């Protein structure tokens, strides 16, 4: 009898001793030592199983059950302790590996498109969605295509509007606008409808200064069809301005003069720097001139191969560099072909 009670008592002691010592275990090594000591073959609880024969037949299963319970409790406690120790160890590693996140990162070298190309692409994309195709033509042109077929005869007062570079070959010049492309595309297409944009480099005989360049990009629009009206041209350009300058961009069309359009207009957009109050960008007037435009002149339609009694059209021209300058408050147009990396890297 006494033996049974004694063994039960011993089991209680084994459990409480083991759990007490487990609480003091702080390292993985100690944990394994503990496991050998308290759950190994020679552990105290294992000894109890060998002593089952010392108690009566009736008491034997009860003692065995109790011993199993103690063993299980120790095993569970071991696993919990192991888990806790792992967490602590991980935590220590994480703390140890902490970086100075404010040190600079390693940047891959990044390439960029030239700002003029970036602006051109925005313009292309907006017009592409309206069904405009892109048509390019040559830089070195004839006087005929650059002027005469565009309703600008020799000695016409309108020739004052373009300061022209002439080449040493008579009748050959550097195009002053992309408008010669209007004649090229019309002659290729007549009598089918046309809806194109004409991008390209143009040239003007001017002193290079912060405000003027001898070389600049231009993008022209040309639409020719049987039912093209002034309203269409107003709507198309207004839509463009909203997408280019933002949904709230206010625009206005102001009468102007170009020999190859009639009626002609200048499109102004309300200054997006000052909101129209007047600032240095808009030179105090609240508006920015962004496009020359108009209905295609009947003589130009005729020269392109369209009967002006049946066909009508509109054309418009804008300068991507100027638009870039306005959008980013760039005050010197020479930056564009100067290609200084300190300018280019900002785009």
């Amino acid at each position, binding site marked *: 009898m006494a033996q049974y009670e004694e063994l039960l008592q011993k089991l209680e002691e084994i459990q409480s001793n083991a759990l007490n010592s487990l609480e003091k275990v702080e390292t993985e090594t100690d944990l394994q030592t503990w496991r050998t000591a308290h759950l190994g073959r020679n552990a105290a609880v294992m000894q109890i199983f060998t002593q089952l024969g010392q108690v009566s037949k009736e008491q034997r299963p009860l003692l065995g059950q109790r011993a199993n319970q103690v063993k299980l409790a120790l095993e569970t406690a071991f696993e919990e302790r192991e888990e806790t120790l792992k967490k602590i160890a991980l935590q220590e590693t994480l703390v140890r590996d902490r970086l100075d996140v404010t040190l*600079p990162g390693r940047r891959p*070298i*990044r*390439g*960029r*498109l*030239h700002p003029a*190309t970036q602006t051109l692409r925005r313009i292309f994309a907006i017009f592409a969605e309206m*069904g405009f*195709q892109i048509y*390019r033509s*040559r*830089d*070195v042109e*004839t006087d005929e295509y650059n002027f005469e077929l565009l309703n600008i005869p020799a*000695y016409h*007062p*309108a020739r*004052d509007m373009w300061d022209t*570079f*002439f*080449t*040493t*070959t008579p009748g*050959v010049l550097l195009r002053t606008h992309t408008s010669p492309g209007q004649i090229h595309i019309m002659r290729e297409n007549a009598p*089918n409808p046309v*809806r194109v944009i004409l991008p390209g480099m143009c040239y003007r*005989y001017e*002193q290079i200064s912060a405000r003027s360049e001898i*070389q600049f990009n231009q993008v022209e629009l040309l639409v020719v*069809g*049987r039912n093209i*009206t*002034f*309203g*269409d041209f*107003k*709507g*198309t350009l*207004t*839509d463009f301005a909203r997408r280019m300058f933002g949904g709230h961009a206010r625009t*206005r069309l*102001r*009468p102007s*003069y170009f020999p190859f359009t*009639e*009626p*002609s207009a*200048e499109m102004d957009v309300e200054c997006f720097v000052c909101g129209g*109050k*007047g600032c240095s960008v808009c030179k*105090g*007037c609240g508006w920015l001139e962004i496009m020359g435009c108009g*209905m295609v002149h*009947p003589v130009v339609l005729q020269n392109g191969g369209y009967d002006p009694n049946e066909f009508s059209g509109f054309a418009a021209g804008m300068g991507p560099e100027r638009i870039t300058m306005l959008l980013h408050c760039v005050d010197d147009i020479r930056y564009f*072909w100067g*290609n*200084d*990396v300190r300018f280019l*890297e900002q785009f």
Partner: protein
Amino acid sequence: MKIVLSWLRDFVDIDMPLDQLARLLTMAGLEVEEVRLVGLPMPPMEKHEFKFTGLSWDADKIVVAQINEVMSHPNADRLVLCKLWDGQQEHIVLTGAPNLFPYKGQGSLSAPLKVAYAKEGARIYDGHQSGQVLTTLKRAKIRGVESYSMVCSEKELGISDEHEGVIILDDDAPTGMPLVEYMGDAVFEISILPNMIRNACHLGVAREIAALTGKPLRMPVSKMPADGPSIEDQVRIEITDPSLNPRFVFGLIRGVRSQPSPYWVQRRLRLAGMRPINSTVDATNYVMLEINQPLHAFDYDVLVQRAGGKPPTVITRPAYPGEKLTTLDNVERTLDPFTIMVTDTAGALSLAGVMGGLESEITENTQNVLLEGATWNFVNIRRTVAAQRLPSEAAYRFSRGIHPALAMQGVQLCLDRMAQWSGGQIASGFVDAYPEPLVDPRVVITTEDVQRSLGIHLSAEQVADLLSRLEFTCQVEGERITVQTPPHRLDIGQGVVGVADLIEEIARIYGYDNIPASRLADTLPEQKGNPSLEMEEKIKDILVGLGLQEVITYRLTSPEREARLLPPGLSLGDVSYYVRLQNPIAADRCVMRRSLLSSVLEVLEHNIRLRDHLAFFEIGPVYIPQQDELLPDEKPQLVIVLSGCRDLPSWDQPEVQMMDFYDLKGIIESLLGGLCVQDVKYEPSDDPVFHPGKCARILVGDADIGVFGELHPLIMERFDFESAGSPVLAAEIDFDALLYAIPSRREIKPVPLFPPVLEDIAVVVDEDISSDRVMAVIVETGGALLTDVRLFDVYRGEQVGQGKKSLAYKLTYQAPDRTLTDAEATRIRQRIIDALGEQLDAQLRG
């Protein structure tokens, strides 16, 4: 063009604020660039839609006053004291104005002098500082006399730069009236479009305002009687070519006495930007600014004298070859045959429509003025102005076209102004040569024309109304309107052009703002795309993705700039090598470039000290003149330039390596790979721009598409690259050839299902056997099951012996339909080793 508000009011009533007037004009095509206030207050504006400058005169502090007596200053000879009445009280005012000195010591003046008087606290411009500097009048003691107010000059009031004397107003100026009320004004700086030369005058602008506001237009009128002895038989006109000189009118006034013009005339001329001279000359300028007709005054007595005392004959004709004339500005000019001359029997008198001659010019003493009003062919005037570099107010107008009807009106009005301001008697009648009177166009326009162009429906009556406001005469028959052009404009054409011209006028007066916007509803044209541009954009994207910066350079350069890339010892070919400018703006931008590389190297040179790593590319044309062709070939090229370190130095890796040949080659390989260009080979090249041992040609099949390498040291020396301490790598690629090499479509291989067998081999070959050849043997021998070969090591050293190198490859064997066995792989490997041994004498490295 400076347009004076008070002058406009001679012809039309204006009751709107200044900013609204500016907006009205701008939105009708008369763009107001600036409004200069000359006394009037600034209108209240929420948004500054116009630039306003100038000075507003305080009504309380700047008034009309009268000087009743001019007295000498007790302590200063160069100052006088004025006894001045401002309508409320008397003041003693100190001034140094020389134009008051003549009145000194005359006692009380019988005719008091009317002046502009500024009281204490008035804001005016400082007359003693250059430019316009605002100042406020303060009390001060000058030479012992208290001073708190002043009599103003034009400069002090912002009317002009004139500061020689004070303003003496006309006698009828009401003393005590605020000056702003008496003569407060504004000047509109209007930019005149080339087809609107008719509006380069006050009547023209007033006509536009009348049309836009519906107010009536008052035409200028003559007041003086023309009742002197007739001009008939006093002068004869001979026009040799009416196409050069469509009309020539003479009028005559006898007994003029030139003197200063009335103050209001002088003020208007100055505000409009012209200098008053005397009452006779001023009259010609005044009428030009009033109705646009330039006029020329001859001294009649000089012409009679030149004609030997007989009535002169004036002949207009083209200049003779080499003909000379000394013009008003005292320059002797040699003339071209396109210049039109006004001459008499004794020779040349003036350059028609441009400038008068010195000899027949009127002077202070001229008594009898023969006044010319004429019309000239605008092309000839333009050519003369350009050839003589002689712009003038008259030529500005004539070179854009002045209607012949104005010649007569101008002469008439000008004689009237001369008689008013210079005295004299106007001869009755005119001598008028007008051999082929101009027929003003008559254009038929329909409401359908308007609808088709503007997209709005206007009734025939509305169309007629809009045009009538601009003095077109309209006859309406159903939907047709027959429109007669008024005799003051030359910008309306005939037929279909005339219709477009009229539609513009209709739209302008109707208001562009009032035409509703619509979206394109016409047939969408065939969508063709632009494949070469699309591919160009793709190539740019790939290069940007590889870390390159796009640049865009000048396409104008000079042979000297490009000569830096010429091989030593070579010089430029003949002049036809380049597309040359006839009128270059600068010596270093005188031809169209032939080398894009040269331009991009200039960019590198500019930036070389700014960054450790530089990588640029440009796609753009070069210009190659073609024999027997008018226009050059515009050949697009792609240029890539690299210099500096491979990676940017960082805080944990301060050591950097410089880029070399293989960095550039890698970029080219990635680009061609990204474009799926097949069958690419690289061959050594001896292009003289490059280092002879570090230069390769790019071949696609048999086509040579470009060259790249390290710049030749002798070429490097010609650029400012030294400090970089890095080689410069460059590629020059024929862009069209590259586009041609890009396959239009390609197939994507299936992702393999079976595992590969990987293996390394290293072979030792002679130094002069290129890597390419080894690779070619491996690929060819390996066959379809060898799916990838990669060179991973090149070794030279004792272990392989002198004159030899070891090349190590990673081989990947793979079958699409099964797992390869080791035995199969070994067989392929053995074949490769055998072939290398046979063909290249390669040894397998142990």
